[in-house]
């Protein structure tokens, strides 16, 4: 796809929108449809579209395979870490109410953090899968 000018121009215009939309879905999941799973997949779709149109090599330079693997683990660790943090603060595992003095604010913070962990892991795993299939 080296010489498809239309594809290149359209991809350059849409990829930023896809990535920003993914962030919107990520952080607006409390108020509307969305959340970490959808956001991670959409973010990864934007990156993979870049890899398909401009070549996987350029995507590998932007997001090295090692970084994707590290982020996949980091998202899971963030999720489980929020749970352990709740235990250290005297609550149960994954009880977000104890994270902040106001239980409801703690719930909001906990949900924000674990949804972010979900999004990071999903996006990183999808990009890693794409790398597995592209030489």
């Amino acid at each position, binding site marked *: 796809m080296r010489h498809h000018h239309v594809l290149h121009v359209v991809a350059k215009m849409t990829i930023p929108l896809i990535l920003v939309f993914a962030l919107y879905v990520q952080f607006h999941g409390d108020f509307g449809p969305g959340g970490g799973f959808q956001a991670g997949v959409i973010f990864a*779709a934007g990156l993979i579209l870049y890899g398909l149109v401009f070549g996987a090599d350029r995507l590998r330079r932007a997001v090295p395979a090692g970084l994707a693997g590290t982020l996949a683990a980091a998202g899971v660790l963030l999720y489980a870490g929020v749970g352990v943090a709740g235990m250290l603060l005297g609550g149960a595992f994954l009880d977000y109410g104890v994270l902040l003095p106001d239980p409801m604010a703690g719930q909001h913070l906990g949900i924000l953090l674990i949804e972010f962990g979900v999004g990071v892991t999903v996006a990183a795993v999808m990009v890693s899968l794409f790398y597995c299939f592209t030489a």
Partner: protein
Amino acid sequence: MEYLINTVLLALLAVTAGAIAYLRNLFAAVMLVGIYGLLTAAIFVILDAVDVAFTEAAVGAGISPILMLAALALTGREQTAPTSPSGAGIAIVLATGGALVWGTLDMPYFGDPLAPVHVHVAPRYLEGTLSEIGIPNAVTSVLASYRGYDTLGEVFVIFTAGIGAIVLLGNRRGD
């Protein structure tokens, strides 16, 4: 009207599934998989499950066809092995399908408000969402807070699947 839309969508699903099984051109089959995902997402919208519809549209119609296309780039786009149906295969498929249909006979009727899933913990979550979690989207509060263990398990499944693919297929560049 809703009955008509449901019937049309479900019929299109069946046609798409049949075409996927029938086609030898894997490239066209992958495109149909994307269409299958979009149809499923439309059905979820009609069922008022917009979060699930969103996921199905992103995963079923978006990322899985892309990953299948990437796999086709490695394996080739035509199905080469002859697929003449064997008697044993048809018998197994019919027996499995029949068992599944038989199993649905025990399920509660579609939309039954007294179905176990609607009278177990769901009312408790829906009543507590605003006062305990304080976010408007009950789906997110159930998924992220009430059933946080389950969601953590799902993330581990995705992570494990990714690790499995990396170990099996390897980082094909060695970097």
